[in-house]
Protein backbone atom coordinates (compact mmCIF):
# COMPACT_ATOMS: atom_id res chain seq x y z
CA UNK A 1 0.00 0.00 0.00
CA UNK A 2 1.10 3.56 -0.63
CA UNK A 3 1.86 5.79 2.30
CA UNK A 4 -1.17 8.02 1.72
CA UNK A 5 -3.61 5.11 1.80
CA UNK A 6 -5.16 3.89 5.04
CA UNK A 7 -4.03 0.28 5.42
CA UNK A 8 -2.93 -2.17 8.11
CA UNK A 9 0.20 -3.05 6.16
CA UNK A 10 2.56 -1.03 4.01
CA UNK A 11 5.63 -1.68 1.90
CA UNK A 12 8.47 0.40 3.27
CA UNK A 13 11.98 1.13 2.10
CA UNK A 14 14.50 1.77 4.85
CA UNK A 15 18.25 2.14 4.72
CA UNK A 16 19.97 0.68 7.78
CA UNK A 17 23.72 1.13 8.19
CA UNK A 18 24.01 1.81 4.46
CA UNK A 19 22.00 -1.19 3.23
CA UNK A 20 18.55 -0.55 1.77
CA UNK A 21 15.79 -2.98 2.69
CA UNK A 22 12.32 -3.13 1.16
CA UNK A 23 9.81 -5.00 3.30
CA UNK A 24 6.11 -5.28 3.81
CA UNK A 25 5.30 -4.51 7.43
CA UNK A 26 2.21 -4.39 9.56
CA UNK A 27 1.42 -0.86 10.69
CA UNK A 28 1.35 -2.03 14.31
CA UNK A 29 4.97 -3.20 14.25
CA UNK A 30 7.34 -1.07 16.34
CA UNK A 31 10.57 0.00 14.67
CA UNK A 32 12.65 -1.94 17.22
CA UNK A 33 10.88 -5.19 16.28
CA UNK A 34 11.40 -4.46 12.59
CA UNK A 35 15.11 -3.90 13.18
CA UNK A 36 15.57 -6.95 15.40
CA UNK A 37 13.13 -9.50 13.96
CA UNK A 38 12.75 -8.57 10.29
CA UNK A 39 16.32 -7.41 9.63
CA UNK A 40 17.97 -9.67 12.21
CA UNK A 41 20.00 -6.77 13.59
CA UNK A 42 19.83 -7.71 17.25
CA UNK A 43 22.35 -5.22 18.59
CA UNK A 44 19.61 -2.76 19.53
CA UNK A 45 17.93 -4.02 22.69
CA UNK A 46 14.47 -3.86 24.19
CA UNK A 47 14.71 -2.99 27.86
CA UNK A 48 11.53 -1.46 29.20
CA UNK A 49 9.39 -1.17 26.06
CA UNK A 50 7.89 2.02 27.51
CA UNK A 51 10.27 4.67 26.25
CA UNK A 52 12.13 5.05 29.52
CA UNK A 53 15.33 3.04 29.35
CA UNK A 54 16.86 3.99 25.98
CA UNK A 55 18.31 0.53 25.23
CA UNK A 56 16.55 0.64 21.83
CA UNK A 57 18.04 4.01 20.82
CA UNK A 58 18.95 4.34 17.16
CA UNK A 59 19.67 7.33 14.93
CA UNK A 60 16.91 8.02 12.37
CA UNK A 61 17.84 10.57 9.70
CA UNK A 62 20.43 11.99 12.08
CA UNK A 63 18.01 12.19 15.00
CA UNK A 64 18.46 10.09 18.14
CA UNK A 65 15.23 8.12 18.60
CA UNK A 66 13.88 5.44 20.92
CA UNK A 67 12.87 2.80 18.40
CA UNK A 68 10.22 1.32 20.71
CA UNK A 69 8.39 4.65 20.50
CA UNK A 70 8.09 4.71 16.73
CA UNK A 71 6.31 2.48 14.24
CA UNK A 72 8.33 0.83 11.49
CA UNK A 73 6.00 2.35 8.86
CA UNK A 74 6.94 5.80 10.14
CA UNK A 75 10.54 5.10 9.15
CA UNK A 76 9.65 4.59 5.47
CA UNK A 77 12.23 6.44 3.37
CA UNK A 78 14.53 6.99 6.33
CA UNK A 79 18.19 6.25 6.87
CA UNK A 80 18.83 4.52 10.19
CA UNK A 81 22.03 3.92 12.10
CA UNK A 82 22.20 1.14 14.70
CA UNK A 83 25.06 0.00 16.92
CA UNK A 84 26.10 -2.53 14.25
CA UNK A 85 26.96 0.40 11.97
CA UNK A 86 29.46 2.07 14.30
CA UNK A 87 32.56 -0.09 13.87
CA UNK A 88 34.32 -0.45 10.51
CA UNK A 89 34.83 -4.23 10.44
CA UNK A 90 36.96 -4.99 13.50
CA UNK A 91 37.95 -1.35 13.87
CA UNK A 92 36.00 0.03 16.82
CA UNK A 93 35.16 3.72 16.95
CA UNK A 94 37.04 5.94 19.39
CA UNK A 95 33.93 5.94 21.56
CA UNK A 96 33.66 2.15 21.58
CA UNK A 97 37.35 1.84 22.45
CA UNK A 98 36.83 4.36 25.26
CA UNK A 99 33.93 2.30 26.63
CA UNK A 100 36.23 -0.72 26.71
CA UNK A 101 39.21 1.12 28.19
CA UNK A 102 37.11 2.83 30.89
CA UNK A 103 35.09 -0.23 31.91
CA UNK A 104 31.92 1.61 30.88
CA UNK A 105 29.85 -1.55 30.83
CA UNK A 106 29.22 -4.53 33.01
CA UNK A 107 26.31 -6.62 31.77
CA UNK A 108 26.28 -4.69 28.49
CA UNK A 109 22.53 -4.60 28.04
CA UNK A 110 22.27 -0.80 27.92
CA UNK A 111 25.51 -0.39 25.94
CA UNK A 112 24.07 -0.26 22.38
CA UNK A 113 21.72 2.54 23.42
CA UNK A 114 24.43 4.33 25.40
CA UNK A 115 26.76 4.17 22.39
CA UNK A 116 24.12 5.59 20.03
CA UNK A 117 23.19 8.40 22.43
CA UNK A 118 26.83 9.25 23.04
CA UNK A 119 27.52 9.10 19.28
CA UNK A 120 24.67 11.56 18.63
CA UNK A 121 25.89 13.79 21.45
CA UNK A 122 29.50 13.90 20.21
CA UNK A 123 28.40 14.67 16.65
CA UNK A 124 26.38 17.66 17.81
CA UNK A 125 28.87 18.69 20.48
CA UNK A 126 32.37 17.21 20.01
CA UNK A 127 33.65 18.54 23.37
CA UNK A 128 30.79 18.32 25.85
CA UNK A 129 31.13 19.40 29.47
CA UNK A 130 30.35 16.90 32.19
CA UNK A 131 26.85 18.37 32.58
CA UNK A 132 26.28 18.17 28.85
CA UNK A 133 27.33 14.51 28.86
CA UNK A 134 24.92 13.77 31.70
CA UNK A 135 22.11 15.61 29.94
CA UNK A 136 22.91 13.89 26.65
CA UNK A 137 22.64 10.45 28.27
CA UNK A 138 19.62 11.27 30.41
CA UNK A 139 17.35 9.09 28.30
CA UNK A 140 19.49 5.98 28.85
CA UNK A 141 19.31 3.90 31.99
CA UNK A 142 22.14 1.68 33.24
CA UNK A 143 21.54 -0.55 36.24
CA UNK A 144 25.13 -1.76 36.66
CA UNK A 145 27.74 0.94 36.45
CA UNK A 146 26.32 3.86 38.38
CA UNK A 147 27.06 5.81 35.17
CA UNK A 148 30.41 7.16 36.32
CA UNK A 149 32.57 5.08 33.98
CA UNK A 150 30.20 5.80 31.11
CA UNK A 151 30.68 9.54 31.62
CA UNK A 152 34.44 8.97 31.81
CA UNK A 153 34.36 7.02 28.54
CA UNK A 154 32.43 9.72 26.71
CA UNK A 155 34.81 12.33 28.10
CA UNK A 156 37.80 10.28 26.95
CA UNK A 157 36.31 9.90 23.47
CA UNK A 158 35.83 13.66 23.23
CA UNK A 159 39.47 14.49 23.98
Amino acid at each position, binding site marked *: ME*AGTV*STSHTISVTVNGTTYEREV*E*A*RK*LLIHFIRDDLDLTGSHIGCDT*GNCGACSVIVDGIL*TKSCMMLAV*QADGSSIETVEGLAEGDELTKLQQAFSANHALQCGYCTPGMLMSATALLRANPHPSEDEIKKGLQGNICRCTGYWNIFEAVKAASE
Partner: protein
Amino acid sequence: MLLREVAYARPASLAEAVGLLAANDGARALAGGQTLVNVMKARAGSPDALIDLSRITELKGIDLAADGTLEIGAMTTYTELAESSEARARPILGEVCGQIADVQVRNRGTIGGNICTNDPTNHLPPLLAALGAEMTIHGAGGDRTVGAHDFFLGVYMTAVGPGELLTRIRVPAGRADGFAAVTLGVEGTCIVSAAASINGSLKVALGCVDAVPVVLEPSSEDEAAVRDAVASAGLDPPSDVHASSEYRSHLAQVLAVRAVAQAAKNRS
Protein backbone atom coordinates in the same frame (compact mmCIF):
# COMPACT_ATOMS: atom_id res chain seq x y z
CA MET B 1 5.26 -5.08 22.45
CA LEU B 2 2.75 -6.06 19.82
CA LEU B 3 0.09 -3.42 19.40
CA ARG B 4 -3.49 -4.20 18.56
CA GLU B 5 -3.96 -4.21 14.79
CA VAL B 6 -4.12 -0.67 13.48
CA ALA B 7 -4.29 0.95 10.06
CA TYR B 8 -1.93 3.74 9.08
CA ALA B 9 -1.62 6.45 6.48
CA ARG B 10 0.86 9.26 6.00
CA PRO B 11 -0.85 12.06 4.10
CA ALA B 12 1.23 14.74 2.39
CA SER B 13 -1.07 17.70 3.01
CA LEU B 14 -3.32 19.17 5.67
CA ALA B 15 -6.41 18.84 3.46
CA GLU B 16 -5.67 15.18 2.86
CA ALA B 17 -5.12 14.55 6.60
CA VAL B 18 -8.36 16.22 7.65
CA GLY B 19 -10.18 14.27 4.90
CA LEU B 20 -8.74 10.95 6.16
CA LEU B 21 -9.61 11.76 9.79
CA ALA B 22 -13.18 12.61 8.81
CA ALA B 23 -13.59 9.58 6.55
CA ASN B 24 -12.25 6.95 8.98
CA ASP B 25 -14.17 6.29 12.17
CA GLY B 26 -11.81 5.61 15.03
CA ALA B 27 -8.88 7.34 13.31
CA ARG B 28 -6.53 9.40 15.44
CA ALA B 29 -3.83 11.85 14.52
CA LEU B 30 -0.28 10.59 15.17
CA ALA B 31 2.06 13.48 15.97
CA GLY B 32 5.42 12.59 17.55
CA GLY B 33 4.01 9.44 19.11
CA GLN B 34 5.88 9.86 22.39
CA THR B 35 2.62 9.53 24.31
CA LEU B 36 0.27 7.82 21.88
CA VAL B 37 2.49 4.80 21.13
CA ASN B 38 2.76 4.08 24.86
CA VAL B 39 -0.99 4.58 25.29
CA MET B 40 -1.51 1.98 22.57
CA LYS B 41 0.95 -0.45 24.16
CA ALA B 42 -0.92 -0.18 27.46
CA ARG B 43 -4.23 -0.63 25.58
CA ALA B 44 -5.37 2.55 27.32
CA GLY B 45 -6.41 3.63 23.84
CA SER B 46 -6.81 1.60 20.67
CA PRO B 47 -7.35 3.75 17.60
CA ASP B 48 -8.48 1.89 14.48
CA ALA B 49 -6.28 4.02 12.26
CA LEU B 50 -3.36 6.40 12.71
CA ILE B 51 -3.03 9.43 10.47
CA ASP B 52 0.67 10.34 10.62
CA LEU B 53 1.19 14.11 10.46
CA SER B 54 4.98 13.98 10.17
CA ARG B 55 5.30 14.85 6.49
CA ILE B 56 2.82 17.73 6.36
CA THR B 57 4.88 20.86 5.75
CA GLU B 58 1.95 23.16 6.67
CA LEU B 59 2.30 21.94 10.27
CA LYS B 60 6.00 22.75 10.54
CA GLY B 61 8.10 25.85 10.97
CA ILE B 62 8.42 28.73 13.41
CA ASP B 63 7.75 32.28 12.17
CA LEU B 64 8.65 35.44 14.03
CA ALA B 65 6.60 38.48 13.02
CA ALA B 66 7.92 42.03 13.14
CA ASP B 67 5.89 42.74 16.30
CA GLY B 68 7.49 39.76 18.08
CA THR B 69 4.55 37.39 17.69
CA LEU B 70 5.62 33.78 17.24
CA GLU B 71 3.68 31.37 15.03
CA ILE B 72 4.69 27.82 15.82
CA GLY B 73 3.65 24.88 13.66
CA ALA B 74 1.93 22.18 15.70
CA MET B 75 4.41 19.50 14.52
CA THR B 76 7.44 21.44 15.79
CA THR B 77 9.45 19.16 18.07
CA TYR B 78 10.67 20.22 21.51
CA THR B 79 14.24 20.05 20.22
CA GLU B 80 13.42 22.24 17.22
CA LEU B 81 11.77 24.79 19.48
CA ALA B 82 14.65 24.72 21.99
CA GLU B 83 17.20 25.23 19.19
CA SER B 84 15.20 27.75 17.14
CA SER B 85 16.69 31.25 16.86
CA GLU B 86 13.19 32.66 16.20
CA ALA B 87 11.80 31.08 19.38
CA ARG B 88 14.41 32.97 21.42
CA ALA B 89 12.03 35.92 21.07
CA ARG B 90 10.12 34.22 23.90
CA PRO B 91 12.95 32.47 25.77
CA ILE B 92 10.77 30.57 28.25
CA LEU B 93 9.44 28.36 25.43
CA GLY B 94 12.81 26.83 24.58
CA GLU B 95 13.81 26.73 28.23
CA VAL B 96 10.79 24.64 29.19
CA CYS B 97 10.90 22.46 26.06
CA GLY B 98 14.55 21.71 26.89
CA GLN B 99 13.51 20.18 30.22
CA ILE B 100 10.84 17.78 28.97
CA ALA B 101 11.79 14.11 29.42
CA ASP B 102 15.09 13.36 27.62
CA VAL B 103 16.95 13.90 24.35
CA GLN B 104 15.18 11.13 22.45
CA VAL B 105 11.69 12.17 23.53
CA ARG B 106 12.47 15.84 22.85
CA ASN B 107 13.67 14.88 19.38
CA ARG B 108 10.31 13.40 18.40
CA GLY B 109 7.70 14.84 20.79
CA THR B 110 5.84 17.85 19.44
CA ILE B 111 4.38 21.00 20.93
CA GLY B 112 1.04 20.23 19.26
CA GLY B 113 1.00 16.69 20.60
CA ASN B 114 1.82 17.93 24.09
CA ILE B 115 -1.10 20.32 24.31
CA CYS B 116 -3.61 18.20 22.35
CA THR B 117 -2.97 15.36 24.80
CA ASN B 118 -3.68 17.83 27.60
CA ASP B 119 -2.38 15.48 30.21
CA PRO B 120 -2.40 17.58 33.41
CA THR B 121 1.19 16.47 34.10
CA ASN B 122 2.44 17.97 30.82
CA HIS B 123 4.54 21.13 30.90
CA LEU B 124 3.06 23.11 28.03
CA PRO B 125 -0.66 23.55 28.82
CA PRO B 126 -0.05 25.82 31.85
CA LEU B 127 2.84 27.57 30.13
CA LEU B 128 0.82 28.45 27.02
CA ALA B 129 -2.13 29.47 29.18
CA ALA B 130 0.09 31.91 31.12
CA LEU B 131 1.64 33.31 27.93
CA GLY B 132 -1.76 34.04 26.40
CA ALA B 133 -1.20 31.73 23.43
CA GLU B 134 -3.86 31.24 20.78
CA MET B 135 -4.44 27.97 18.96
CA THR B 136 -5.57 27.66 15.36
CA ILE B 137 -7.72 24.61 14.61
CA HIS B 138 -8.37 23.46 11.07
CA GLY B 139 -11.37 21.40 10.00
CA ALA B 140 -13.64 20.88 7.05
CA GLY B 141 -15.21 24.30 7.72
CA GLY B 142 -11.87 26.14 7.65
CA ASP B 143 -9.83 27.68 10.47
CA ARG B 144 -10.86 28.91 13.89
CA THR B 145 -8.66 30.38 16.59
CA VAL B 146 -9.22 29.91 20.32
CA GLY B 147 -7.42 31.06 23.47
CA ALA B 148 -6.17 28.69 26.15
CA HIS B 149 -9.34 29.10 28.21
CA ASP B 150 -11.43 27.72 25.35
CA PHE B 151 -8.81 25.22 24.17
CA PHE B 152 -8.19 23.13 27.30
CA LEU B 153 -11.54 21.51 28.15
CA GLY B 154 -10.71 18.58 30.43
CA VAL B 155 -8.20 15.81 31.10
CA TYR B 156 -7.13 14.57 27.64
CA MET B 157 -9.80 16.84 26.11
CA THR B 158 -9.33 19.94 24.01
CA ALA B 159 -11.34 22.06 21.60
CA VAL B 160 -9.90 20.03 18.69
CA GLY B 161 -12.92 17.99 17.62
CA PRO B 162 -13.30 14.88 15.47
CA GLY B 163 -12.04 15.51 11.96
CA GLU B 164 -10.06 18.57 13.09
CA LEU B 165 -6.37 19.29 13.61
CA LEU B 166 -4.44 21.84 15.63
CA THR B 167 -2.27 23.61 13.06
CA ARG B 168 -0.52 26.56 14.66
CA ILE B 169 0.15 28.09 18.05
CA ARG B 170 0.47 31.85 18.22
CA VAL B 171 2.43 33.28 21.13
CA PRO B 172 2.46 37.07 21.64
CA ALA B 173 5.68 38.99 22.25
CA GLY B 174 7.12 39.20 25.75
CA ARG B 175 9.97 37.96 27.89
CA ALA B 176 9.01 38.45 31.53
CA ASP B 177 8.05 34.82 32.00
CA GLY B 178 8.78 32.10 34.52
CA PHE B 179 8.16 28.40 35.00
CA ALA B 180 8.65 26.15 38.01
CA ALA B 181 7.69 22.55 38.60
CA VAL B 182 8.26 19.64 40.92
CA THR B 183 8.73 16.67 38.62
CA LEU B 184 9.10 12.90 38.76
CA GLY B 185 12.85 12.57 38.40
CA VAL B 186 14.96 15.47 37.16
CA GLU B 187 13.05 16.21 33.97
CA GLY B 188 10.06 13.91 34.21
CA THR B 189 6.37 14.73 34.15
CA CYS B 190 5.07 17.31 36.59
CA ILE B 191 3.62 16.61 40.02
CA VAL B 192 2.65 20.29 40.14
CA SER B 193 3.72 23.06 37.79
CA ALA B 194 3.32 26.82 37.66
CA ALA B 195 3.92 29.28 34.85
CA ALA B 196 3.92 33.05 35.22
CA SER B 197 3.97 35.92 32.79
CA ILE B 198 4.10 39.66 33.33
CA ASN B 199 2.88 41.20 30.12
CA GLY B 200 1.00 44.31 31.09
CA SER B 201 -0.68 42.41 33.89
CA LEU B 202 0.51 39.38 35.88
CA LYS B 203 -0.89 35.98 35.00
CA VAL B 204 -0.14 32.69 36.75
CA ALA B 205 -1.24 29.29 35.41
CA LEU B 206 -1.10 26.21 37.61
CA GLY B 207 -0.79 22.69 36.22
CA CYS B 208 -1.70 19.33 37.82
CA VAL B 209 -4.07 20.83 40.36
CA ASP B 210 -7.20 20.49 38.21
CA ALA B 211 -8.32 18.97 34.91
CA VAL B 212 -7.21 22.07 33.00
CA PRO B 213 -4.66 24.80 33.76
CA VAL B 214 -5.94 27.11 36.51
CA VAL B 215 -5.27 30.71 35.50
CA LEU B 216 -4.99 33.32 38.25
CA GLU B 217 -4.30 37.04 38.26
CA PRO B 218 -2.60 37.93 41.55
CA SER B 219 -3.00 41.56 42.54
CA SER B 220 0.78 42.05 42.61
CA GLU B 221 4.11 40.26 42.25
CA ASP B 222 4.65 40.27 46.02
CA GLU B 223 5.05 36.83 47.49
CA ALA B 224 2.14 37.37 49.88
CA ALA B 225 -0.17 38.43 47.05
CA VAL B 226 0.80 35.43 44.91
CA ARG B 227 0.31 33.02 47.82
CA ASP B 228 -3.01 34.62 48.62
CA ALA B 229 -4.22 34.30 45.04
CA VAL B 230 -3.40 30.59 45.02
CA ALA B 231 -4.82 30.03 48.51
CA SER B 232 -8.12 31.69 47.64
CA ALA B 233 -8.49 29.91 44.28
CA GLY B 234 -10.48 27.11 45.93
CA LEU B 235 -8.11 24.43 44.62
CA ASP B 236 -9.05 20.81 45.25
CA PRO B 237 -6.22 18.89 43.57
CA PRO B 238 -6.34 15.13 43.23
CA SER B 239 -4.32 12.85 45.51
CA ASP B 240 -2.25 10.10 43.97
CA VAL B 241 0.79 7.96 44.70
CA HIS B 242 3.11 10.94 44.08
CA ALA B 243 1.44 13.61 46.21
CA SER B 244 -1.56 14.15 48.45
CA SER B 245 -4.12 16.81 47.66
CA GLU B 246 -2.83 18.93 50.57
CA TYR B 247 0.77 18.65 49.39
CA ARG B 248 -0.23 19.64 45.84
CA SER B 249 -2.01 22.72 47.24
CA HIS B 250 1.14 23.59 49.18
CA LEU B 251 3.36 23.07 46.11
CA ALA B 252 1.04 25.24 44.02
CA GLN B 253 1.79 28.21 46.28
CA VAL B 254 5.52 27.56 46.43
CA LEU B 255 5.85 27.06 42.67
CA ALA B 256 3.66 30.06 41.80
CA VAL B 257 5.95 32.24 43.93
CA ARG B 258 9.05 30.80 42.18
CA ALA B 259 7.56 31.26 38.71
CA VAL B 260 6.57 34.87 39.44
CA ALA B 261 10.03 35.60 40.85
CA GLN B 262 11.63 34.25 37.66
CA ALA B 263 9.23 36.27 35.51
CA ALA B 264 10.08 39.46 37.44
CA LYS B 265 13.80 38.74 37.08
CA ASN B 266 13.43 38.17 33.34
CA ARG B 267 11.71 41.54 32.92
CA SER B 268 14.90 43.45 33.63
